[in-house]
């Protein structure tokens, strides 16, 4: 339930009132390398995209080399297998025409350096995106504009959503996924929270905001939900853990067959 983010903000504020931060050195072990697979298939052409990389030690630099030479296949429920091609960018595998059909099941197979990883995902039905608009809320640091997303949740079925916000063409990195557990059949106005409550993350006049609205599978929702609840660097979570992946074979990441709609607005 996304509204619990409010509680998180509140406690952050309580703590920040009397705390100080300092960079420290830690000597930690590095676990054996693991493959990281980020695979998406959308209901649009050019939406099939698989990124393959590896984990590395926490104190190395943040440039992650892609893994080349992988064989990547996506199979639809009629048994048609499509192979993705490696692009000029290392570790990025694409297909220009492959697109998914909502409600159909897709299988992913990744073979790399003798290891095989598989996953299955059902592309959910489309839920029409009605509106994307700014709306002001008053929180601790004063009034602030938040992007809101309006859609009507289909009644009687489980739906899962993900929201991706871009400000002036830059992804804001805020991970927002929701389900309809409390909103089944309702018109939903979802607040998009920023990654951090900083002055910089405030929406200002002239900012161009683009919002992508995804309907995602339950397993993919579970992935994003667990990312949001532990994999982002600690805090006072009792036991941070890796997100729950829908890929079999021991890789990190997810395979998401989703539908995608988007809308833009400019802050007035």
């Amino acid at each position: 339930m996304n509204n619990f983010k409010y509680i998180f903000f509140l406690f952050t504020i309580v703590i920040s009132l009397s705390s100080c931060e300092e960079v420290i050195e830690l000597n930690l072990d590095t676990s054996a390398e693991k493959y990281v697979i980020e695979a998406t298939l959308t209901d649009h052409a050019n939406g099939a995209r698989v990124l393959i990389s590896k984990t590395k030690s926490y104190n190395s630099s943040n440039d992650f080399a892609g893994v080349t030479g992988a064989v990547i296949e996506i199979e639809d429920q009629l048994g048609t297998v499509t192979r993705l091609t490696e692009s000029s960018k290392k570790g990025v595998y694409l297909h220009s025409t492959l697109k998914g059909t909502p409600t159909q099941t897709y299988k992913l197979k990744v073979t790399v350096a003798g290891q095989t990883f598989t996953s299955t995902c059902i592309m959910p039905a489309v839920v029409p995106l009605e509106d994307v608009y700014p709306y002001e809320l008053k929180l601790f640091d004063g009034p602030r504009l938040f992007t809101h997303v309006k859609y009507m949740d289909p009644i009687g079925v489980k739906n899962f959503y993900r929201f991706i916000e871009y400000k002036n063409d830059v992804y804001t990195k805020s991970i927002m996924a929701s389900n309809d557990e409390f909103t089944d059949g309702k018109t939903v106005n979802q607040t998009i929270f920023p990654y951090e409550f900083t002055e910089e993350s405030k929406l200002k006049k002239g900012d161009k905001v683009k919002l992508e609205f995804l309907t995602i599978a339950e397993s993919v929702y579970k992935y994003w939900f667990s990312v949001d609840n532990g994999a982002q660097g600690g805090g006072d979570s009792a036991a941070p853990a890796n997100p729950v992946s829908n890929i079999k074979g021991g890789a990190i990441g997810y395979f998401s067959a989703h539908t995608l709609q988007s809308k833009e607005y400019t802050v007035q």
Partner: protein
Amino acid sequence: MTSNLLRLVVLFVSLFSLNFLNATNALGQQTFKISGQVKSGESQIEAATINIVEAKRNVMADSLGNYEVELKAGSYTFVISAVGMTTLRKTVKVSRNQILNFSLEDSANNLDEIVISTARDDRSLASPQMGAERLSMKTIKNIPLIFGERDVMKAIQLLPGIKSAGEGGAGIYVRGGSADQNLILMDDVPVYNAAHLLGFFSTFNPDAVDDITVYKTGMPAQFGGRLSSVLDIKMRQGDAEKFTASGGIGLISSKLTLEGPIKKEKSSFLISGRRTYVDALLKLSPDSTINQNIMYFYDVNGRADFQLGDNNKLTFSGYLGSDKLGLAKTFGLSWGNGIASAQWKHIFSEKLNSTTTASYTSYQNKIEINTGIDNVRIFSQLKDWALKQNFFWQASDKNLVKFGFNAIYHTVTPGEITSEGVTSYNPVNYQERFSLENALFASSDWQASEKLNIGFGLRLTGFSVLGGGDFLTVDPDGNVTNSTYYQKGDVVKTYLNLEPRLSLSYLLNQQSSLKASYVRNAQNMHMISNSTSSRPSDKWLPSSLMVKPEVSDQFAVGYYRNLFDNAFELNVESYYKTMDNQIDYRDGAETFNSDNIETQLLYGIGRAYGLELLFKKKKGNFTGWLSYTLSKTERKIDGINGGNWYNARQDRTHELALVGSYQLNEKWSLNASWIYYTGDAITFPTGKYNLDGQVFFYYSDRNTYRMPSYHRLDLGANLQLKKRKTFSSELSFSLYNAYGRKNAYMINFREAENDPSKTEVVRTTLFQFLPSISYNFKF
């Protein structure tokens, strides 16, 4: 299993009958009856021990402090002691039947009597009770304040075997147990959430507290329902002689207590209130948004006592406390406890009396969101109706028997969502859970010989999961295998647990004794939390088809010695404890939905063992103690760390506390405390990866790393101001973390601020050099 139960019952019954034989033998001799009461200030002391040196006898006082002993004519030395109380020696000439009352004076809130040098916390060497510590408000007065408050929950963290749940936190871990495994009783009524404001304050207003007794093991059989400890907090009784007002003004909170006779010497009242005003500082802001933020808590304690004749006493007490936090008008969060109880103490005869307590306790939690688009309210609650009946029977002067029962009806409302106007939300009502928790108990404290004292008890608990909802069975992978609906009132399942309690003490000589004990506890109300600080999102769950009662078994041995004419005291205890049916979340658990919470849980076992040392200096201008704990706490849960034993979060190898106070002169007293402990076991990343265009961290096994070790010095001083007959006041100063140690509250990993290509590790520190001052008065 059944045959074991049977054996225990047989053992228990045979021990009882032995006592009767003993009691009969004691009769028939030519003796005089000495009887009376042992008191501390206004309140009676339960189970005080009276050692009659020449007769080589130990007599126990009952719950009302009454004792009775028959002695031949002669001169005797009476040594009266109770756990953590001042020991009194008195010479008594016995030549007739007579009434003798003893007073172990110990009044914390009486500002006229800050005479620390006479405070002598003697442990009764002879009593079989072990693993117990009692702290009066007076002892707590000699410890530096934290946030300007004398908090009982903070003070007990300075004792061995009791660990704080984190910086400034009121939560505690006792002998490897988790925070929810402590039975916290406020005048015999359980308190579910003992923390205010993230745990920085406890729910116990120091002005209303009389004392606290902590049982780490050897819990008397009348206590049960939690695995790790009993914190028996007694609230203060109002002054039955004269009307007084006392209070305190601090930097972040103020309090006021009024008390006095309703009818002189017969009845009294006490009412005490406290409120913090952190948000008053916010109100000073001219920014209309900031000054609309809310952050405060309050609590109110009330108590009325009525002495009805010689044989009846009625006590009514109540507590109401709440925390309120709000972000402008958009978001509000409040939680709190409400407690009401009525207690009747009745003396049937000189040998038999009873205490009956009827109580109600509730803990609730409200979240309000008003964005203008969505107006939602989320409500959850836990409610208990309880009846407790304790009998105290002086079977002989060598044997005090306690028996009784208690019954609690629990109602858990896990979550209700309501909304107003236009909203995205459907109303939700998670199924309420009902259960009935019954217990029968009996125990006996028996002086088997001059040197050997035996305490034994048995507690039988029955926890009935009641219907009115769907009950799930779940396979080990978290999939629902069956769901059955039970009508309201149907018994879904009853869990029976037999909890034996046994303790022995053997007096080696007048200065030292050895003790040993075994105790079993069962717990049917479980709190699950995925955060390290005490939060209102923590969830209480009753046992169900899948969630089984937690059970612990603890063995402990100890050596106790008084040194240099009781100026020093040394206690060494060692324990081994096992815990069954421990609960943890699955990775990525979604815990808001309560109807299928069982699919999100994992179960396992735990063990803890350790050595605890307490060395006290009790006489002179300088008093204090040194406490040291060496311990290990582990969990083993299928699905975590490959099903192997791993360190529990609170596994701290070493823990040391040094507490000292010095009476400089009549006006000034100084105090200090220093603590050190090994950092908590924690999970740090063992790698990172790129996904979604950002950096995430990869984790291997749980809790394989440690936080940096923690240490801190606190300093305090009390200044007695003008002291007149009708008015006295005092100033207390303190400095928390006096040398500014940067202890880690959290350690986070993130992109380096000045170089996003790197990852930096950031340590968040709370409270360096936190001074406080408070002014207390009484008239």
